[in-house]
């Protein structure tokens, strides 16, 4: 352990740490723009510079390792002046007006300029000019605001293995964008929004749906229902500076009522429904292969994450038959709201507006896919990210923190704890096992607190197996079968898993893939900035919500039993097939 002196303090950071890490561990703040937690530092922006005694130039702390005896000043006048100059130069090329900007609330550049005491433009240089890319349903890019930090490039390439954006051109003309600075629709972008979650400024943001939602709420003819995804309740509080991991389910429901929604429902309901449909689909595939000697694609992959679906359509079309045909819970909800619910309420489905609140930007893309009109209308009309809902609650003039708690409406607001955990990586798998194991053996999943602990970590690829013992007669063919499952989150991890399956190195029965690191709790539409620590806090909150529920398994949800009795009939039946299931299409990666 080297000994260093930082700002006059003696420190003993671990070997191989950078100056930045050592400073952070000691409670010293060094601003960063291009640095991304857990990724190889680029050293591009240089706002993290520090002074090291005995060395002429200032050094970028994010990529300079500590060495024995270093004497470091992180905030000397020289450092502050140099840092200010760097930010002033960035601002001289920056094309944006904070008061009109989506990021005005949490922009890192604006905050930095403010902290450094920059009060007037210093350099008036040539600006690169602003080019707006609104070619895709979920993501809007504004090149004029881009400070070329390349965080989005790192995320899109290293975390998501998509590679939709990359620096194009050279020198002053460089843009951080899809091929030849064209629109995102010209390349294979999966709309995950991880770029919007890491961009320090307003250069990549989600497409705004708040205006459409306000207009619908204002229209007396419209019956506006809202569904909230499981992950929102564990993160929305952060938009109001509550500590990460604060559960705000009850306050969120009250806020939505104040905003004027006619019914407040839960994507959890259709998460439970997904387990019934997807669990039956898995059992059917297993039966086809093991008993009937027929053919069915195994492993079965989960289908709730639209970014993953689009990723498979571009990069792994050979696995499309393996993906469960179940629509995502968001889309199941939309299809049912405009059929089952509208019928029950005696409302013309044309007047029903379905709004989703999602931790995800890809859901904005998903809701306008051509397959998602099975109710006869666009099943889901608007998708708000967690961030957008936070903003709308502020616009509604509500003091969120002080709101009383209230409950969701029946029947589409009722759910089990199994639905809550859809928010976490490994959660869909655990929820499915809770039901499938019990259906097959007649006994509850033999695990403490019903948690499949090996699947709950932030490890990129996780596996588990479970031996079926004491199967009930209907499922006796599964007796003694070792059910093997795998879970991946983040598309780079998913790619690694897919490659091992493709090479035949590993075999599984069921595989969960989530587009975003950590699962939906780490979604591209969540409050910024999501670190692993925050992921863990949200995951814990979700488990708390699950454990606090009277019902923990999807098949126990009475509203689910009711919808099969009243409307759907059988799992995988005719109605389900029409409303709850879908199909996928191979896509060309580059627009010709």
């Amino acid at each position, binding site marked *: 352990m080297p000994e260093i002196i930082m700002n006059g303090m003696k420190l003993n950071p671990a070997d191989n740490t950078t100056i930045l890490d050592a400073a952070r561990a000691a409670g010293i703040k060094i601003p960063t723009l291009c640095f991304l937690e857990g990724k190889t530092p680029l050293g591009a922006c240089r706002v993290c510079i520090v002074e090291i005694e005995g060395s002429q130039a200032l050094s970028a702390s994010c990529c300079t390792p500590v060495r024995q005896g270093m004497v470091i000043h992180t905030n000397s006048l020289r450092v502050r002046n140099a840092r200010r100059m760097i930010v002033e130069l960035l601002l001289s090329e920056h094309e944006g007006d904070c008061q009109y900007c989506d990021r005005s609330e949490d922009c890192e550049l604006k905050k930095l300029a403010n902290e450094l005491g920059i009060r007037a433009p210093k350099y008036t240089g040539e600006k690169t000019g602003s080019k707006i890319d609104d070619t895709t349903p979920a993501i809007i890019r504004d090149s004029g605001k881009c400070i070329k930090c390349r965080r989005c490039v790192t995320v899109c*390439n290293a975390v998501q293995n*998509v*590679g*939709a*954006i*990359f*620096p*194009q*051109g*050279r020198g002053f003309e460089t843009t951080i*964008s*899809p*091929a*030849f600075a064209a629109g995102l629709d010209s*390349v*294979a972008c999966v709309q995950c929004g991880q770029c919007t979650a890491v961009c320090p400024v307003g250069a990549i943001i989600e497409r705004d749906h708040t205006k459409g939602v306000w207009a619908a709420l204002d229209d007396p003819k419209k019956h506006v229902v809202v569904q909230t995804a499981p992950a929102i309740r564990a993160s929305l509080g952060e938009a109001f500076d509550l500590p990460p991991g604060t559960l705000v389910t009850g306050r969120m429901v009250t806020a939505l009522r104040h905003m004027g929604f006619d019914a407040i429902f839960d994507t959890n309901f259709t998460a439970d429904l997904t387990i019934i449909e997807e669990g039956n689909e898995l059992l059917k595939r297993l039966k086809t292969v093991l008993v009937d000697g027929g053919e069915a694609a195994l492993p079965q992959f989960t289908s709730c994450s639209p970014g993953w679906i689009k990723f498979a359509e571009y990069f792994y079309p050979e696995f499309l038959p393996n993906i469960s045909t179940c629509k995502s819970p968001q889309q199941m909800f939309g299809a049912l709201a405009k059929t089952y619910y509208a019928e029950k309420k005696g409302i013309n489905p044309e007047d029903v507006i379905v709004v989703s609140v999602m931790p995800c930007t890809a859901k904005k893309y998903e809701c306008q896919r051509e397959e998602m009109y099975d109710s006869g209308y666009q099943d889901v009309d608007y998708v708000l990210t967690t961030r957008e809902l936070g903003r709308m609650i502020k616009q509604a003039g509500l003091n969120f923190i002080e709101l009383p708690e209230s409950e969701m409406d029946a029947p589409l607001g009722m759910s089990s704890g199994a639905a809550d955990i859809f928010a976490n990586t490994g959660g869909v798998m655990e929820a499915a096992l809770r039901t499938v194991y019990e259906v097959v053996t007649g006994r509850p999943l033999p695990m403490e607190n019903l948690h499949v602990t090996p699947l709950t970590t932030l490890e990129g690829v996780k596996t588990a197996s479970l031996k079926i013992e004491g199967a009930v007669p209907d499922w006796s063919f599964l007796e003694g079968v070792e059910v093997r499952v795998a879970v991946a989150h983040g598309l780079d991890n998913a790619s690694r898993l897919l490659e091992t399956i493709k090479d035949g190195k590993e075999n599984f029965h069921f595989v969960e893939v989530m587009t975003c690191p950590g699962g939906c709790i780490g979604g591209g539409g969540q409050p910024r900035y999501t670190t692993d620590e925050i992921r863990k806090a949200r995951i814990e909150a979700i488990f708390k919500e699950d454990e606090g529920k009277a019902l923990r398994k999807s098949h126990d949800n009475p509203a689910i039993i009711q919808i099969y009795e009243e409307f759907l009939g059988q799992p995988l039946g005719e109605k389900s097939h029409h409303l709850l299931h879908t199909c996928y299409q191979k896509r060309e*990666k*580059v627009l*010709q």
Partner: protein
Amino acid sequence: MKATVESKTFNDFSKNQHQEMSSTDVIHILDNIINEYSGTEGALIPVLQSAQNMLGYLPKYVMIHISERLGIPYSEVTGVVSFYSYFSTIPRGRHVIRVCLGTACYVRGGKEVLEALEKELSIRVGETTEDRQFSLEIGRCFGACGLAPVVMVGDDVHQRVKPAKIKELLKQYEGAGNE
């Protein structure tokens, strides 16, 4: 007045070939090149270079194919292509006009000649006429400074070119085949 300099450059030679090459042929040759590099790091730039040498420029389908075969995202391939001015994605015209702007040519009216060419062809430097007859480029010194300003059309060297004579000069090439 015509004077032939050296031999044809490899680029021009293969460009001629390209005009008879179908995209299937191109992909076939490209695949052989890529196979030679299979498994090596940093194959992208040499593969792009070979492709450009073969075709004179990098058409989109070639870049897409390289991206697929090397498993490198298309945006990264184009990022590299647009970083190096060596690479071109625009097919060049039948006749490439290079105007020397070396000191001697510049002083003796090279710039005016260039402007006249731009005006006459209605294109700017780096562009190609719509009928794909002419591309306009700036050349390095051709070593004919004594006879500046110098303009090369393909492999022909034209010396002491005057802006007023541009029309006449171009006439020789209009409709003419590949020299």
